[in-house]
């Protein structure tokens, strides 16, 4: 039995199903033998170092790349079908806005392709706070404004699956936060795959992680379940204290390695009992970094 033939052949509650998928460009595989199933609507953060295959994964699920091996189903249907494609939105890291178009015109272009009307364009403009920019040429906008226009496209029409490839790159923290909030609102009843390089953002937005390293699926599961063999915190005290002298120092912080986050309250209590006046405790290393090793 091949991996592709293991896919369910009838309408399914499984939103995305990959079975033994290898995919890449010009017959050269970037992704190798990826299999997973996604049913629960929430944010799945796709993590991996540069060149790991995150964009290739998104393009393959979106039907832009044909897998070299294996198969993909969207709610039980092959992702090659029009009905499957109608269930998903894909946001690329490239803007994809035709040259010489104004903001409103560009969204109208995609609205026509999506089969929705002017009302949807107005709503997307409002949602991304683009009304003041709607008559500006896309090429004249700043990088952040361009990204907002690009993101607005996925709000033209409601779908069940959102594949968002680095939606907050090039955005200032305020706008990035607003877009993350919109995506979090979406994820209450939608499946959102969200790729990011930013490990702190990943923990902020996602509850599940899909880690791709070297083209292979290295982790698929709950972010909270990720346990590492070390957890590093920085302790900043009001004044130097002998109880801290055993620890190495980085800037203002004494670096303490503990088994996990659950050990931090005990450490703080212990140091306080010894008379250390603690000003700040901060995580010095994100546990998600272990996924990249």
């Amino acid at each position: 039995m091949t991996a592709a033939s293991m896919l369910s052949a009838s309408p399914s509650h499984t939103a995305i199903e990959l079975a033994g998928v290898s995919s890449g460009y010009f017959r050269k595989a970037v992704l190798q033998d990826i299999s997973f199933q996604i049913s629960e609507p929430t944010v799945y953060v796709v993590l991996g170092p540069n060149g790991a295959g995150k964009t290739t994964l998104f393009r393959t699920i979106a039907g832009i790349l044909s897998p070299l091996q294996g198969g993909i189903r969207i709610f039980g249907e092959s992702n090659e079908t029009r009905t499957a494609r109608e269930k998903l939105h894909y946001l690329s890291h490239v803007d994809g806005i035709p040259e010489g178009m104004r903001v409103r015109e560009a969204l109208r272009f995609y609205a026509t392709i999506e089969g929705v009307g002017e009302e949807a364009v107005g709503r997307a403009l409002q949602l991304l706070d683009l009304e003041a920019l709607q008559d500006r040429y896309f090429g004249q906008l700043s990088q952040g404004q361009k990204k907002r226009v690009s993101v607005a496209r996925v709000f033209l029409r409601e779908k069940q699956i959102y594949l968002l490839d680095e939606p907050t790159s090039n955005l200032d923290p305020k706008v990035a936060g607003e877009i993350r909030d919109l995506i979090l609102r979406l994820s209450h009843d939608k499946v959102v795959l969200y790729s990011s390089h930013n490990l702190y953002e990943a923990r902020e937005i996602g509850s599940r992680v899909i880690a791709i390293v070297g083209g292979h699926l290295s982790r698929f599961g709950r972010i909270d379940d990720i346990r590492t063999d070390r957890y590093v915190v920085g302790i900043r005290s009001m004044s130097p204290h002998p109880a801290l002298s055993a620890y190495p120092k980085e800037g203002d912080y004494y670096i303490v390695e503990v088994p996990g986050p659950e050990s931090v309250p005990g450490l703080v209590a212990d140091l306080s009992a010894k008379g250390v006046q603690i000003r700040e405790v901060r995580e010095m290393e994100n546990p998600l970094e272990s996924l990249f090793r």
Partner: protein
Amino acid sequence: MSDTASPSEGAGLGALVRINVRRAVTVGRIYLGMATALSLLVTGLVVVETSRTGAAGTVIGSVLPSELPIFGVVGSLGALMVFVSDKSKGVYEYLISYGVDTSVISASIVLASLVLVSIVLGVAGGASAILVYVRTGAVPAYYLREFFVNAVPLAFSATAFMTLACMVWAAIASPRAGMNGPVGFAPTIGIGPLLVVLVTSGLAPPDLRMWIAPGVALALVGIVLLLIALLSRGSVRERFLSTL
């Protein structure tokens, strides 16, 4: 977010052609204007040059239709410019994800180029027909034959061939071609079939000459349909991605 319309209604060939025609006219307006103006200028020059001999109607009727395809090819470049620009901007990555087939994208560009040719042929053909009528008091059969049997099929087929050949070039070139390569070289590819007709017409026996232009046009249409069919293969999609 409650729109229920199906994207298949919007993403069809008709919608894409309408959008691409509008954009091709905007992007390629200089080529379109130049081709139309040149065709009218040549018409005017022929009239001035031949008015002394009184044979203007005959000359316009027999010479001009054979030159119109060249202006058609040049006037249609806007459609190819839209393709190359959209490809480099990543527009096709989105269209494919919406379920728009690569053959539909290709066909929409080819059809848009044919609409541009129609504009050139309509203006230049109409103007020359009026001049012939003014000079001879009728639109003679030889003019109509030259126009509809030679000029129109050759202009449409050479343009479709040029557009598609350059799209394939832009898609398969490695390293990836920018806009200058395919668009800059396109007129040479488009005028190539017209030169073939010109040369073979001079060499062919007289009773075969009238079939050369329709024959070449038919062969070009066959090549265009074959290329569009090849462009519908799934493995071609990655050729439509941006290099950004």
